């Protein structure tokens, strides 16, 4: 037993050491964000809209565990567009800021309720954790399709939960493979300048130090668009985004 503790301790020491090294290294590569007080910060506001025809709302077929998930089809959240082409759940963020206001908060938890992820788009600061809950009566699994953060896929018992930490900034798709219609997105942010658009496609980034930044709008079905935005001290800059639906390859799958 003592030997085990010793060898485990040794492993832990190496692990800690490497973590320090790794964090040290990644700082070089990523130029980590530095939070502090921002006096007389500016604001960036705007809307995100869809270019082109507004598609009909699509639905998701519920073909499993209908006692819990319901018998009806669920509305798809992959592309939520209002009548005037405003996009909900688009994420607007500054991609190249290394110093600014303090970074705290984020979405505390993603829940699975009625076989739907709530919220559909969540956000946490880099290096922090999020609770992943299951409020349903059936087992769900949580599968993260991340590229930078260590990916996981774990079963979560009815009314159970797990917690996960995300080391690198990344847009992570999270699905439940048991119920294939269930999808959500977790945005791991390097800085606090991000916003998720409301039903009118509106967003607001506050407390931005004066300067010129690259601002990105991203939506899960449409990809992203960026623009350079200059913010004056205490001023308000406007940046509207238009995202376009990419043409799919012509070939469609045949249903057998």
């Amino acid at each position, binding site marked *: 037993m003592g030997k085990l503790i010793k060898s485990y301790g040794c*492993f832990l020491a190496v692990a800690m050491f*490497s973590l320090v090294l790794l964090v040290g290294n990644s700082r070089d*590569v990523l130029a980590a964000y530095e939070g502090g007080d921002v006096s007389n910060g500016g604001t960036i506001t705007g809307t995100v809209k869809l270019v082109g025809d507004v598609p009909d709302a699509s639905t998701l077929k519920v073909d*499993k565990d209908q006692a819990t998930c319901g018998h009806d089809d669920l509305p798809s959240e992959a592309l939520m567009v209002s009548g005037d082409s405003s996009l909900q759940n688009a994420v607007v963020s500054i991609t190249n800021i290394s110093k600014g206001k303090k970074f705290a908060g984020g979405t505390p938890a993603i829940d699975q309720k009625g076989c739907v992820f709530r919220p559909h788009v969540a956000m946490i600061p880099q290096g922090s954790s999020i609770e992943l809950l299951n409020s349903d009566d059936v*087992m769900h699994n949580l599968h993260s399709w991340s590229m930078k953060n260590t*990916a996981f896929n774990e079963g979560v018992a*009815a009314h159970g939960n797990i917690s996960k930490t995300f080391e690198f900034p990344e847009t992570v798709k999270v699905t439940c*493979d048991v119920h294939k219609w269930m999808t959500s997105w977790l945005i791991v942010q390097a800085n606090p300048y991000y916003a998720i658009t409301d039903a009118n496609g509106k967003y607001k980034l506050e407390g931005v130090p004066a300067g010129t930044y690259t601002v990105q709008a991203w939506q899960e079905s449409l990809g992203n668009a960026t623009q350079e935005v200059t913010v004056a001290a205490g001023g308000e800059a406007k940046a509207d985004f238009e995202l376009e639906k990419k043409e*799919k390859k012509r*070939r469609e799958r045949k249903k057998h």
Partner: protein
Amino acid sequence: MKKEEEKSYAGLFLFLSFILTITIAWAVWNEAVGKRLWKLYQSRFYELEKEKVRGEYGEAVTAFNQPGVQEKYKEAQRKLEEAWGRFNTPTVQQGYMKASRELSVLDKEELSPLKFEAMVTRNKMLEEEYQYGKHKSDEPVKKIMELEERGNVLAAEIEDLEKKRVGLQKNLDESMHDINMYASELKTFTNDMNGYQEYMVKLKSKRPSLQIYQVYLEDINEADRCMSCHVGINREESVSGEQPYANHPERKVYLGNHPPERFGCVLCHEGQGRATISPEKAHGEVEYWLAPMHRGKIAQSSCIKCHDKGEELIGGEDIAKGIELFEGLGCFGCHETKGFGEDRNSMIGPDLTEIGSKVNPGWLLEWLKNPKHFRPSTRMPDFRLEDEEAIAIASYLWQNSEGFEPGEPKEFDDETIDEGAYLYESVGCLACHSEIEEDGRVHGPNLSRIGDKANYEYLVSWLLAPKAHQPKTKMPDMKLDEEDAQYVASFLMSLKGEEGYDDLTGSEWLSNKETAKKGEDLIGRYGCFGCHKIMGMEGMSKIGVELDEVGSKSIHLFDFGLLEKEILEGVGLDNADENVSKARRAWITAKLRDPRQFDQGRYKRPKDKLKMPDFGLSPEEIEALSILLTGMKEGELPENYIAKLTDEKRYLVEGKKVIDKYNCMGCHQFTIDTLYLKNGSVVKGMVKLEEEESLYFQLWVDNEGLGRKAGDTVQIANEEIEKMVASQGGDINPYIIDYHVEVEGSIAEEAKVFTPPVLYEEGKKVQSAWLFDFLKEPATLRPWLDVRMPLFTMTENEATVLSRYFATLEKEEYPYEFIVETKDRYLKEKEKEKPGYLAMAQHLFEHKDVNCASCHVRGDITPEGDPSDWAPDLSVARNRLKPDWIVDWLIDPQLKQPGTKMPKFFREGVFQDIFPGTPEEQAVALKDLLMNLPDEMLKQKAVKSEDPLLD
């Protein structure tokens, strides 16, 4: 005229004695110096060696004298002095002395007497035991007990004292700790310098004796003196960049595996190992010497003297390429060659017995005239046929073909073609074929413009059962149904070039008997049947020269025609005898570059003309082939030189052959990425994402250096990476991923789920017997895949070789393996430990928070939802999977197959009410259940009363 007595011969004598003196002087000089060039080389070598060390010493001194280094050195010196100062203070000294005294007292006065007594007690005990053995009385037993007790007491006391001793020793060490540390730090500054200095002194003190170094290879009666000039050939560090002073290039690979003391040099390099008079003679580069030296890459030709042709040799890459070409181009179709073309189950070119229903005659004619014009990547060489010759051959083939009448050309609508294209892209054709002009994928023929060549009806029938048309084809049965085969064929027929071919179906010559007769003669002359199956030509023998011993064939048997002078001059020779090996290679090179050039300027009857076709080889390919041919020599080395493959290696070599034959890697990934970091550590896993300055790497194997576990993703800066060896196989994956990303809108990581399974560590995963069966007759395991395992119709031997390959690779048992889990004894024991064991496991299996059946098929019972979302049938697990693998899999599926949809269920402390225990114990229980799934768990319970007809 003077009298004889008055004549003086003094001038003549003087002259003659002068000549005599010169001659003697020359003889002495020649003997001592001229013929002893090796002495010069050796002295020069030792000079160079000294110079090198001197230079390195100088560098070390300069480095040490750098201000920065000096500062640190002084600092270390200062610290050492301080440490001594601290140590020399009275209190520390007193403590040290006291501890050291205590230690010595402890050792002498306490520990040794106790140890002595313990020894005596033990001896007494042995004696009593001996006494007991003799008399069997009670007294010794009692004594033994007493002694044993005493022994235990003593042992305990000794242990206590030892502990105390360790404590004291530690105290002593601690007080000296700083001093030792700084002293050794100080040493690191001067280590290099001192090392070189010592080395220099050593070199100076010992005068190297100049001598002949000879290796005598008794078995082949060869004396090898090469190292008399090449003294430093096996030195770790080279003293010069030039021979004969330099060491062997890639010394570790070549000499590490072939120590010159055992193999000499001539075994690989040939030459005249005995000669010491001049480099030319020693290298055998003199007239009439039969084995001139192999320089550079050519030395690789000797690898096959001892090594199996299939063995992958580091440092033998060029000859390996030659072997691959020889094999791939089908040289053995015309030239009988030992060790090639031994797979009776395959064929170089396609079977031509159905050619009339397969292709368009207009295409055939053009193809015969210049195959590479239609298909640059084809292996079919150019026979440089005249028009009439091509017509005659086409006519013979057409009249000797069976099959069905091809129907009229058909037109297909876009929808049909699209569906065909979708199937073509998704079922797996892309693993071997490409419809894009010459994109480098050549395992199967390139399919661009195939519509100009082929007949639709034939394609459909071919796709449905390739082996029914050509029993020896490598093309597998893709298990398409008739409708799908039609779709794919219509897509293929839509691939047309701009020009197309004339429809010559009605031509007179196609059915003319006389033309066909001419064709028959031509086919006989060119030996087409060496590669193709042609009706009426069965059992004909190969038309080319045997190549078994071409590397030692007399140079005078090579016919240069009128080009001898020109070709030999090209390699710097005046005549062939000057360097027979070079001359031979010059001929081979010329032959391969332009096979019929030796006919130039000579009259020959048509049937005597050279007939070897033009393969359109590149200079590199020609070089590789000439290395191989140079190595095909007569005679064999004695047994003890032959690098016999161990069984294990042989299994791997054989397996690799079958893998290449069927192009398994076209679909399956076999290995993972390996990163060699600059700090020396090796990281295994898969690259997940590459960015400008770093990459994200998912570990598949625990890595102590990084302190991370398998499954973790780590960021590694590009500048830390020395070298990366990429995974092998899975060539089709990018197409599948691309489709799912572009059309289905998945993210790339998700799309990987739709790629063929990775076979890394397959031998640890599946049971060999199951794999054998599966290879013979694949069944669908993963219903969500569009790409499918085709039916290769392997021979039993091939399936055996493959399943053995995977087992051998993972050092698993083969062919039989005892699976204890399925035995009654095992289950009984488990039941005894945990009553109701299997029933509890079943509860775990069925518990709503594990609920295996929610996704997995089991026998007759299928899960809810779309079949493409179902997971593999669990009733197969018992015969398919290895029990240990199942346990590892259940503990954390992501570690075995990153990205899998199978979640991890068993975390510390969960499901304790159903199956109390650790995650391992829970996984083991589920494994035991899977290995013993009761029948009733596999059958749909007959509870539904609905009329099945209503469904």
